[in-house]
């Protein structure tokens, strides 16, 4: 196991995080033991963040103490790996749908750094009181107004850094993904410093990861 980033390890073409709850799988991922440490394999086809890393991400903003606001946490597939990485921090996981939330609540019971919040990410006022402080935003919401949701939350919680997973087809199905990506990146550049922008194919089709700073 070779350490690639804080809390992220690589062995040949797979990446891993250290399992915070040894023996437990979250989404039927592979568990491997190396020198007494249990690692969970991080599947890039199931998690866009893993795809981002494998596609050559250079600037990894997570630390052990990160306080992450996660919009569109769903059942917690990706959040579980963040939970492994951010051992001394907090992950506020927001999702609007109750079905995935049910799973995420179960996951949060055994992982003390996961805080489930069932709410609409376009209404940060409604969960503002729960989010005491955040210094990183991660968003994976397939919605037409996903960029607006992102900026609204960055502002509301005074967050200086964020990653957004953009799904071209949900922003505008009539335009070519390439064109949507160009427009979104330009849009982002007018508000933030764009650290990296990487397409996630072949792991996730028509998706792009954009990492920004204020």
């Amino acid at each position, binding site marked *: 196991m070779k350490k690639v980033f804080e809390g992220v390890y690589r062995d040949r073409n797979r990446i891993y995080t250290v399992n915070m709850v040894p023996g437990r799988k979250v989404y039927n991922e592979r568990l491997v033991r190396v020198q007494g440490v249990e690692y969970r394999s991080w599947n890039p086809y199931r998690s866009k963040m893993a795809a981002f890393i494998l596609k050559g991400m250079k600037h990894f903003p997570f630390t052990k103490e990160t306080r992450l606001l996660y919009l569109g946490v769903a059942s917690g597939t990706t959040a579980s790996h963040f939970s492994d990485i951010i051992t001394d921090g*907090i992950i506020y996981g927001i999702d609007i749908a*109750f079905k995935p*939330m049910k799973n995420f609540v179960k996951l949060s019971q055994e992982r003390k750094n996961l805080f489930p*919040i*069932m709410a609409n990410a376009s209404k940060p006022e409604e969960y503002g*009181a729960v989010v*005491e402080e955040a210094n990183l935003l991660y968003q994976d919401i397939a919605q037409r107004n996903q960029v607006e949701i992102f900026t609204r939350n960055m502002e509301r919680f005074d967050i200086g850094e964020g990653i957004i997973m953009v799904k071209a087809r949900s922003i505008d199905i009539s335009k070519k993904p390439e064109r949507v990506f160009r427009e979104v990146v330009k849009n982002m550049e007018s508000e933030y410093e764009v650290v990296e922008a990487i397409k996630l194919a072949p792991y996730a089709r028509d998706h792009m990861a954009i990492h920004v700073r204020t």
Partner: protein
Amino acid sequence: MPYLKTTWFGTFLYDDEKIIDKRLFPKEAEKIAERLHKIQKGEVLEEEKEFADYRPVVDETRLKNLGRMGIVKKLEVKGEDYGYDVSLLHEATLLLSRKKIGEQQADRSKRLGEAVEALDDVIKIINILLERLRGWYGYFSFGEVEDGKELIEKIKHLRIGTERVDEMEQENMANMAEILASLYSCREKLEDYVEEVVKKIAPNVAAITGPNIAARLISHAGGIEKLAMYPSGTIQLLGAEKALFRHIKEGTPPPKHGVIFQHEMINKAPRNKRGKIARLMATKISTAAKADAFTGNFIADDLKREMEKRYREIMEEG
């Protein structure tokens, strides 16, 4: 003018220099969850109302009548500074999420209940119109037309001139027939919808009782999880709440069955056996609901076989 801001552990009144006053929440996860829930629903907390006299600057629309909207200075306080451990917030978010999930589920099952009742309404209306049109059409033909759809076709093809019908009369009959036709399609779509939803959330119960009765049970219980937690005696009486109430208040005979009475295994059975069969069915529904809510296994084939076997025994008893 001071600012007002509410965090997960209390409400703060402060200005550019200092905290002027505060109302801390009780150090209990449940009480905190209650307040966070209120905030999410757009309500104003009692703690916040106490600062109304200051007409503070606020930045949430739910508080706009308390003071005035404006830019609020960032509040630099942490729960830990006041002895609120972060595990308290963790517990509160778990409680609140579970509560909201429960509410949504109950809401969904009530909407499913609306669909089943809409189906009842549509069937009633169909029967009223059908009876009317049969009688009316009877003047133009000998012998009853049994099938509703056939009747619609016949009315549409009534020939003016050849069959003593005049133009306006034919037009009105055809209009009614048209409505009847669209009610039929409405009924089919509602049935499809109810069946699809029920088979998704409760495949086992649906297999035991049929989708229609399953939908009513789920809606009365307020969700499949709730249904799964009821004892079978309660399941047997779901939907008979009124009769049960009358029994308690006025001493009328106690009800033996609720919505499951609509199942022909019960309503076609001789009176003296209905109670027994209802109990049998309720037991199987209870097991089926637990599988749907908790394990997700499909066990209805076995359950149904057992139920039918026992049913035959009951029917053969003297």
